[in-house]
């Protein structure tokens, strides 16, 4: 039996590694924004480099998992669903990276009075991604728990939307140049969007759960 499960266990490890990257990326994203808001730009750049590395590894792992599933005709009935989950989850990591890259390129000037709200929005988005990693992991290992995590993702997504809206209102109430307002709105949107991507994956996941259930 151990011999038969050898390949399976190897792919399981790869899927776990992929989800670890997702979880790491969400935490790193949160820390990177904190560094940026506190003007620790060198540390922010280090975090960005780390996320770039993560994104590469996630891509490689995803391709490797996909190849294994197809070559060995594993989980034929759920293969399409699993690949869609992995691809959509990978997009979340890409978005986290893109968001930080934009910070690194444009270096937006964020007024200190927005720091707290900015951080709260970031945390909500990051929490949504963290809960997504639990949801996807449960989809593979513990089907009954998935819906709880999906519920949490929806909760944090709504929270991120709510905080993001407040953030944008505050930006446009401030006495700064319109160009800066516009730029900050763009970054606020970007942070909010990360939780939206997590929600999209969950929308699919909830259908796949029904499909998998007996």
């Amino acid at each position, binding site marked *: 039996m151990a011999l*038969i*499960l050898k390949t*399976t266990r190897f792919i*399981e490890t790869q899927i776990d590694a992929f989800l670890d990257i997702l979880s790491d990326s969400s935490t790193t994203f949160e820390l990177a924004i904190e560094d940026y808001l506190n003007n620790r730009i060198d540390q922010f750049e280090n975090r960005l480099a780390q996320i770039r590395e993560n994104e590469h590894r996630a891509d490689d792992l995803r391709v490797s998992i996909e190849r294994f599933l197809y070559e060995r005709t*594993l989980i*034929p*009935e759920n293969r399409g669903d699993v690949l869609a989950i992995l691809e959509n989850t990978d997009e979340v990591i890409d978005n986290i990276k893109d968001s930080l890259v934009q910070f690194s390129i444009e270096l937006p000037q964020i007024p200190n009075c927005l720091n707290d709200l900015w951080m709260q929005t970031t945390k909500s988005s990051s929490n949504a991604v963290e809960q997504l990693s639990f949801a996807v992991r449960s989809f593979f*290992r513990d*089907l009954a728990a998935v819906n709880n995590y999906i519920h949490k993702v929806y909760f944090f997504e709504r929270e991120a939307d709510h905080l993001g809206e407040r953030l944008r209102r505050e930006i446009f109430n401030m006495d700064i140049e319109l160009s800066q307002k516009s730029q900050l709105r763009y970054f606020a949107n970007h942070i909010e969007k990360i939780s939206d991507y997590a929600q999209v994956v969950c929308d699919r996941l909830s259908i796949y759960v029904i499909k998998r259930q*007996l």
Partner: protein
Amino acid sequence: MIFIYLLSGLFLGWSLGANDTGNIFGAAVETRMLKFKTAALIASIFIFLGAVLEGSGPSGTLGRLGSVDALGGAFTVALAAALTITAIVRTGIPVSTSQTIVGAIIGWNYFSGRLTDYRSLLTIVSSWVIAFVLSGIIAALLFYLIRPIINRGRIHLLEQDVYTRLGLIVIGAFGAFSLGANNIANVVGVFVPVTPFKDLNLGGFTLSAVQQLYILGAISIIVGIYTYSQKVMRTVGKDIFHLSPVTALIAVTAEAIVLFIFASRGLQNLLLSIGLPPLPLVPVSSTQVIVGAVVGIGLVKGGKNIRYNILGKVSLAWIAAPVIAFVFAFIALFIVQNVFEQTVFQQTVYTFNRITIQQIEKEGLDTSHLSSVNGHRFDREMEVYKELGGEKYFSRSEMLKIIRIAEVYPLQVNTKLLLDKGLANHFSQKQLEALIKLENREFKHKWQLEETLSQDPSWQKRKELGERDKLYNQNLEEQFNLLFRTFYFPPSR
């Protein structure tokens, strides 16, 4: 000549392989859990083993329905059944081999003017219904058992995939074994008494003549699997019931269990030993059984996923198959008898004289209504039936008893023939010794041999106090039938 006759049995075997394997591996192949090549290999090995090792069980029941007594008849009956299956399979609808062969046998009964034993027919037909319902119940129970494991258990999706795949292989193998054991009787059962083979000694291991016949039948099934079953598997797995791999596993498990229940003598004895009523050993339809399982699962899930229109088509085929086989058999028998001038049934004579009427009286039947037939000879069972006023004075089973007593069936005891055909292992040592004592004795009626042999305790019927005695008597009846077929000795021989 017998090999040419055997061809139709092999054709039937081919159609069984093409048709029934789909019921076991269709869903597994269609969900891509198993490759067709793997499924075909497993099916071939285990159908073969089931047929050769456990195949003798259900053939007796079929024999009681209609004892096709001429090789030409057996050939035609098998041919009609095979043609029916092939014709229906070409429409993409799976069909029941068992129902088809039963339709063809009844066709032979009508053509040869024999009375159909409604009791045996009822046993067979009711076993189909029981098999269908039982399979649904087993599948539903399995579904209830497995659902929490899948929905609440903490098995990784990939590991679940491996276990399901292994399950489909193991259960598929078990299903194929049961199918081989249960359905080989349909394929070559009618040829058992006339097997052209002799026992084959393979150095410490003897392959009996009957086993060789079963091997040949099993090979024809394998050819059917490799040449045509892929198409049927697609139909079963995709169009008729699209199952997920796990539900497919549940359905196939239920199917394999039911096929096994209706094929295993061992299980029958076990049921008896714990005081439960045994199920008859009957070739049941694997198509009906798998449909029963799918309906069972569908109902447990709320009945929304059942595709009633397709189920309707499949069920229609259950009625159409025996009817078409009946018509085909009747026409084919007419052609084979009149165009090819082959004997499709033994010309049997029924005489009512002092001896037979005395015997009828001895059996406890009222002989006062036999005056119209006393001193007469009849060429057909139906003539006797009509002459005695149908079922006015006698019930159908009493009528069959009378006919059996009046039937002239010349026999000569020849134990060498039993040994040559590899049939000796169907009897105990004491039974064989009793037979040897009667070597070369001739009898005019079957019951005369039965009566003479009954003087020996090993050939005596038991008083039917319970199911065990009933089964013992049934086995004894099968043994007698085997003797009658083997010792048949027409005057011209």
